[in-house]
């Protein structure tokens, strides 16, 4: 399948992948610190393991950004 990831079209042998598997394939070191958008919808982190991406989907992911005084 071909999916667009962070603005670039990428090809995968698999016909579908969970978002969790996709993050592994993209070598994301800390998936727990990443926000993911699939076809314009921001996912809850709990949904990474169950949300499936398929041919033609558009996926964006970036690092959660925050900080604090502690």
């Amino acid at each position, binding site marked *: 399948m071909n999916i667009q990831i*962070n*603005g670039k079209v990428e090809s995968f042998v698999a016909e579908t992948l969970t978002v969790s598997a996709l*993050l592994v394939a*993209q*070598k*994301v*070191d*800390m998936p727990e*610190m*990443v*926000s993911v*958008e699939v076809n314009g919808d*921001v996912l809850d982190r709990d949904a990474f393991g169950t949300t499936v991406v398929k041919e033609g989907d558009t996926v*964006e*992911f*970036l*690092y*959660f*950004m*925050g*900080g*604090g*005084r*502690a």
Partner: protein
Amino acid sequence: MVILQIPSAIYDAMVAHAKQNMPLEACGYLAGETPSSTPSQAGENGDDPKGMRPLDPAVATVFIPMTNIDKSPEHFTFDPKEQFAAIKQVRQSGESLLAVYHSHPETPARLSAEDVRLFNDPNMIYVIVSLAAAIPEVKAYRVRKHEDVVNIVRVDIVVS
């Protein structure tokens, strides 16, 4: 030495944004160009085991104020929807996100332990605007983590 060049108009807009949000922490992005510019998004450092890119001078050309969804004087979190909108805006213009800025309303422009814990993008420069004194203090850093080792490098800010 890593250098972040910020035009005075952008510098002033960033400090003004921090002041407008007092007593809450304010936050935003600085976007622009580097000679070896690459989009700063998760997973794009897979070919580099240290998660680094060359330390080229970075020139900010755009200030993107963001919403602190924590609405707190002690911590901040970007709105993920705004983050995705920002990265798309910057990508369309052919630039890159260079720096994350946030303000410290009452404390110096130093990284807190929580800042370091939560800063996980090795491509970003982290800019802190302190409003603790009468004259705002602005400092910048890079934070790099490799296994349990955290390396914090000061970034020189040049206001042009």
